């Protein structure tokens, strides 16, 4: 009996064969096992799949139908193929909104990250009542956006509001923060940074908390300056959290409807109309469902692409 025709008990066991088995049908046994496993996986997955289909699949399919038809919220209308997408992509209003969305997102993501990073580093040092400050700094994120936008409106809306009055008292004129297109854009972006920095602060604080302080002590003994410690140790150590927070904040900014709509309604003269505001106004104010949903589709595709690119950056940072 050669070893090739009669495998030892140990090798049979490794191959998953019973000791007394013929060994003639190991493939069969394996495939039977796989089928069982597959069935188990299938039944275990069913609840999640059903939930996903109900929550995401159905609306997505319904939206796809709306985007390719000329109907309204009640009636599907006629199939128009890619006409709605073509109309949207050739519309100057879409590109103006896309441009504003881009700036809004860049300022929203990096502005809130910078402020959040600064405060997270500050709160890491031993300052009196640090925990109280942390809670207070969370307020812009915690307070409902309806309340904070109303507060901001009253701070800047009229020439006699607090902030324009302060400017006037310093001899800086009376800026119309919401009525001037450029100032309105800046105001909305600053508002977004104000609302979002607590989120960034918490993300970065959590990342910083996991960093071993002995790393800094070692670096300090090696003669690294504060700046070198920050750029060579702190930033790389929180890189992964940073990229994840950038992805999430990008999604928050692109999808942000209330911050803009409650403060400016997208005006003046569309200066602060983002893509999501444009989609809303197209569907619910112009009652043009197809083009409005087409805008939402374009936004979604863009977000997925951006997210995948940033995710690759996360993997890269992990490898490094």
């Amino acid at each position, binding site marked *: 009996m050669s070893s090739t025709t009669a495998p030892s008990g140990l090798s049979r066991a490794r191959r998953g064969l019973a000791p007394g088995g013929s060994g003639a049908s190991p493939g069969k046994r394996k495939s039977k096992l796989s089928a069982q496993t597959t069935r188990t996986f299938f039944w275990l997955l069913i609840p999640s799949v059903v939930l996903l289909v109900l929550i995401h699949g159905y609306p997505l399919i319904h939206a796809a139908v709306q985007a390719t038809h000329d109907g309204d919220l009640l009636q599907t209308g006629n199939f128009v193929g890619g006409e709605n997408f073509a109309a949207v992509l050739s519309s100057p209003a879409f590109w103006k909104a896309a441009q504003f969305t881009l700036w809004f997102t860049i300022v929203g993501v990096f502005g809130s990250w910078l402020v959040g990073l600064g405060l997270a580093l500050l709160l890491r040092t031993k300052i009196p009542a640090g925990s109280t400050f942390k809670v207070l700094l969370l307020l812009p994120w915690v307070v409902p956006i309806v309340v904070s936008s109303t507060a901001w409106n009253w701070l800047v809306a009229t020439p006699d509001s607090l902030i324009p009055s302060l400017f006037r008292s310093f001899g800086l004129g009376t800026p119309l923060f919401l009525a001037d297109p450029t100032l309105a854009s800046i105001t909305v972006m600053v508002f977004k940074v104000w609302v979002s920095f607590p989120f960034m602060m918490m993300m970065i604080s959590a990342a910083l908390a996991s960093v071993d302080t002995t790393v800094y002590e070692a670096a300090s003994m090696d003669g690294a300056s504060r700046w070198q410690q920050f750029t060579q140790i702190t930033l790389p150590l929180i890189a992964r959290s940073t990229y994840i927070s950038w992805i999430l904040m990008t999604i928050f900014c692109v999808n942000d409807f209330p911050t803009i709509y409650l403060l400016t309604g997208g005006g003046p003269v569309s200066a602060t109309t983002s893509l999501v505001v444009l989609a809303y106004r197209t569907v619910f104010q112009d*009652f043009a469902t197809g083009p409005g949903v087409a805008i939402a589709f374009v936004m979604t595709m863009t977000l997925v692409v951006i997210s995948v690119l940033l995710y690759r950056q996360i993997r890269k940072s992990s490898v490094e």
Partner: protein
Amino acid sequence: MNVQPAASKAFSRRGFLGLTAAAASVPLLAACGGGSAAQGGGGAAGTIKFWDMPWATPAYNDAAKKIAEGFSGANNSKANYQIIQWNNFYQTFSSAIASKTGPAVSTGGGFQAFQFEQQGQIAYADKVIEKLKSNGQFDDFLPGVLDPFKSDKGYVSVPWQLDMRVFWYRKSLFEKAGVSLPTDWPSLLEAGKALKKVGAFGFATGAGSGNNYGNHSMIMMMVNNGGGVFNKDGELDLLNDRNVEAMEFVLELVSNGIVDPAAVSYTTDNMSAQWKDGKAGFGLFQVNVPQRVGDTSGDLLVADPITGPHGDKATIVFPNNIMMYKNTPSQEASEEFLVYYLGQLKELWRQKLMSALPVFKSITELPEFASDPNNVKIVKDWQPIAKTFASQGNTLNANLAALDGGQALNQFSQSILTGQATDAKSALQTFQSSLESVLKK
């Protein structure tokens, strides 16, 4: 050196992509998602579902609920009452109607009945009108308020209140400025210049988030000059000479500083505050402004209508209406309820809960309504010259919903109020092109 904690490596690509796709789908879900208000099915047998909007303070809805729930029909049919918020109301109605959980009778947006009529969801109100004729209420309607609701197929809905746009002024500011009330466009310009010298604005308005008074001011000035968005045949006609002339005049008001440069961003609350704080001297507003802005000292008064350069005298009105839907437990009960409800409307004005004009003459004669000289002036001087958004046409239609509150009119108004539009004709041309792309043929 990989300095990441081990736990974070468990973050898989698929998991991440799934999360990302889910989060990124939010705009799609938001765009096609249903409303939130639908409750139950078609209601219990014989129970009419009546949906109403927050037309005034919560006390209004309490009173309206009491009226609705006091209904008892011939076959022992009843009615229940539900408030629908203005936020996303069209979506709320649409999704409820699509799922057959909508109301049998409702108030709603000014042109909502025509939108749902276009979609085959509205039950015509001709039998209600017949009943109103037989019970005498038909003759009680103020002149002209019913006509805009009559289509080729029948009455689409029945008006119940008039959201009128009239000029208001602050008496003390005119006295301080030493100028008379404007009677025509040149005197409006002169009054505006005089008011500016005392720190007030002579064409108060607002076009910020959710505020349509700026839009209404533009259309009102067109109509006041014998123009309008549509011609007599109901076709889009923004570039007519009267409209161009009206918008040139508004641009003149803007360039003279008679319009508040910040008005373009004013919400209705900001605008009310400007009236209360004595910054607004003269401007277009609704009924019951003193109560709305919180100044009942008698200093805020309704002005006379002003005459356009060609002798025209007009304003705009939004006749809010009650509609019936085909999805009802009993069409007879819906009609019976509507007739009953119209008959009880006087109670809302008797309790001084409304910020709009009634449609019935008898209500305008109630002491609670007629004791306010502003109300009397609006009924006497403004209601007879009021025209709808369909002007110069006569019949309301679904397209007006996309005009009122739509992006085209809003951008046009804002471009005029900011002075970005330096040429009225070009601004109107852009407005016309934008409207053409959204109005259904």
